[in-house]
């Protein structure tokens, strides 16, 4: 009896001590933000980002908390992807200093580094140790942070705040529906399971499109991100082609050529076959597919209009859990995308990748007039203790510790273990190739792709034309001869 009382007392004492210590540390941490921001109190910092779930969360929740804590006002502009780049590139190029922090998508960082648009954060932290939060813990960031480091110096140019995979989503309710499974088995002689190959994907797309039509449902076989927008290029170049084994947009990075005659793969038979497959999926896709960017694809899937599709992971959480916006809550299945033979082996061996590891960071332009205050905000949004809530709201993870957050664990089960897949299989995916000329070459290939989508030209002709133009444009840009 006496022994148990002592044990109880010890447990109570240790718990109390732990709570008190944690509170003191937490309070000290909280106080640090106010203290560090004191010289910048009343300053207004202006930033821009794309209108995505993570950015909206930063704007709605984190920026407000930051303002309350530090007295630094945050004007956070969240706009369309095109407008965001238009505005921030013009601002940084002209050096007008409108923005104190800007969104840097993983694929544009190489262009920004080549143009020296951004402040070297490694040097900045060395110069301003008083502004570096003690619990910043750089080692806790996932490997995604490496995309925002200069290849030669290893210096950091942006704090990642979002990272996610473009995964294969499918409707579990349909894949488990008895009538569906029976009909599928009767037709194809195999069980109705998520696609692992492109042949299986095509069969499923055709089957569900017909199923929707026959049963007078607003259901189609697949999503296709084929709007007249760069989104169409990205789905092809960063999701479909890699899963067919065409990497780096088909550009040979040794001599900067895209044509097969010069060692590229953009107009290779495999690339053409992949484009043909993707364009062919349009006949099984909802009518809005040719007007869809990433947002509409997510909306189509959430509206229950597609049985399967390639969807950016940042949308996975709300599609699977938010019943005010999604009709497929509780019915979302998550898997790796279908692959061509040998691609998975390539990815495991580090010779290739199976899909797109997307995300972005916030960086500070050289033209910013409030670099110190902006730097505090960058650290604020990547604070460890905010990450669970952030990941729950926007399905993005940039810190390894976030995978163990109880909120994430809880969500993981609701999103068919998307977060676990992200943690375990994330290494199979990759960001965009390190092209400083990214937007220019995208704009060369895009019109050909759109013409293939609309049927103006065949996929074969599109890629022959695109590859030739890419070769010529790269020479014009000073790459290769």
């Amino acid at each position: 009896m006496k022994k148990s009382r002592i044990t109880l007392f010890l447990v109570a004492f240790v718990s109390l001590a732990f709570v008190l210590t944690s509170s003191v540390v937490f309070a000290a941490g909280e106080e640090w933000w106010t203290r560090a921001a004191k010289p910048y109190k009343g300053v207004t910092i202006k930033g821009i980002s794309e209108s995505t779930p993570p950015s909206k969360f930063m704007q709605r929740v984190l920026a407000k908390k930051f303002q309350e804590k530090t007295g630094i006002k945050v004007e956070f502009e969240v706009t369309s992807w095109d407008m965001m780049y238009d505005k921030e590139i013009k601002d940084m190029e002209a050096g007008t200093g409108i923005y104190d922090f800007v969104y840097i998508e993983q694929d544009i960082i190489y262009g920004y580094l080549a143009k020296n648009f951004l402040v070297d954060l490694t040097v900045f932290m060395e110069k301003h140790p008083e502004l570096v939060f003690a619990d910043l813990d750089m080692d806790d960031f996932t490997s995604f942070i490496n995309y925002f480091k200069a290849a030669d110096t290893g210096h950091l140019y942006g704090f990642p705040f979002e990272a996610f995979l473009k995964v294969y989503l499918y409707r579990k309710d349909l894949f488990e529906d008895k009538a569906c499974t029976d009909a599928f088995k009767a037709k194809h002689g195999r069980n109705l399971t998520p696609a692992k190959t492109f042949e299986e994907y095509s069969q499923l797309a055709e089957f569900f499109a017909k199923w929707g039509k026959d049963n007078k449902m607003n259901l189609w076989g697949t999503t296709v991100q084929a709007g007249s927008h760069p989104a169409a290029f990205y789905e092809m170049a960063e999701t479909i082609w890699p899963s067919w084994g065409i990497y780096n947009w088909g550009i040979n990075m040794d001599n900067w050529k895209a044509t097969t005659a010069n060692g590229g793969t953009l107009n290779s038979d495999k690339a053409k076959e992949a484009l043909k497959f993707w364009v062919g999926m349009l006949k099984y896709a909802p009518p809005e597919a040719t007007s869809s960017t990433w947002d509409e694809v997510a909306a189509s899937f959430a509206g229950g209009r597609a049985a399967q599709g390639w969807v950016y992971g940042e949308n996975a959480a709300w599609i699977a859990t938010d019943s005010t916006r999604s009709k497929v809550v509780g019915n979302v299945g998550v898997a790796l995308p279908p692959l061509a033979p040998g691609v998975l082996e390539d990815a495991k061996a580090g010779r290739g990748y199976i899909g797109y590891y997307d995300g972005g960071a916030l960086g500070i332009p050289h033209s910013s007039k409030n670099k110190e205050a902006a730097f505090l905000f960058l650290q604020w949004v990547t604070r460890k203790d905010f990450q669970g809530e952030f990941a729950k709201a926007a399905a993005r993870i940039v810190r390894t510790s976030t995978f163990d957050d109880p909120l994430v664990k809880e969500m993981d089960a609701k999103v068919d273990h998307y977060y676990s897949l992200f943690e375990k299989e994330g290494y199979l995916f990759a960001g965009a190739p390190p092209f400083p000329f990214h937007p220019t070459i995208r704009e060369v290939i895009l019109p050909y792709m759109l013409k293939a989508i609309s049927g103006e030209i065949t996929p074969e002709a599109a890629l022959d034309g695109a590859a030739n133009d890419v070769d010529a444009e790269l020479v014009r840009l000073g790459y290769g001869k």
Partner: protein
Amino acid sequence: MNSSRTAWALLAPTLIILAFVGLLPFFYVLYVSFFDWNIFSKTGVMSWAGAENFRRLVFDADFLAALKRGIGFTCIAVSIEMVLGLTLAQLLMIRFKGRSIFRALHALPLTVAPIAVGATWRLMTIPGMGPVSYFLQQLGIDYNIGRSASQAFFTTVLMDIWHWTPFVTLTFLAGLSALPRAPFESAMVDGANRWQIFRHISLPMLRPVILTALFLRIMDALRIVDEVWMLTGGGPGTSTRYVGIHLWRIVFPKTDYGYGSAMSVLLLYFTIVLCWLLITAITQSRKGAGT
């Protein structure tokens, strides 16, 4: 002398603003058009290209196709707007109950920003989801501006007509209201019918107003970007990628400033020549009619 100085002094602020927002950018664009300049090139700096950008333009099939599409769009949309605008203006000259309300209501589209017009039309026509596509589908019409090039083209034309016909109507209405009454009264006394009055009195007297409205609309329609960009994004394929959208994509997303500037200069030149040809043709026909 004094009044002349006062006039120049009063004009000075306007001229200075005009120089800064009109002439200076124009000369800068003209200057850039002779350079090769893409900020994402290896050097990122401007390098002298002479007339190379203009030479490339002549052989640029995509640019020429976009220009052709833009001209087609302009011809169809502006012609309909002119006829519809003139008809509506004539009708609005007639006194009827609720005329003022109708005048105010019909001018409402003019108050909407082009980008909002595009967004609204997109919401209405988005394939599979918009009310227009839904109701047409119910009537058995397969309407999908994401897949049908002709449907997308005519939807952009329709949107432009909806947005800008009120402008033409109001311009003509102002013109008609300002016409002297005497010729009309004389014609009526002489027994002319409505068509004859319109054909031989209203139309000739309205010629300056018609020309002004026509030129303004041609210039505007040729450089249309925001509404169409919002509605179709230039698609499907490149079917609604009019020259303004093509130019925008070259200059901004592609950041090919030199080539894009050359394109702008050529488009401006083309617009001026087109307007000059039109005014010459109309003046010649007027002279011909007079002899």
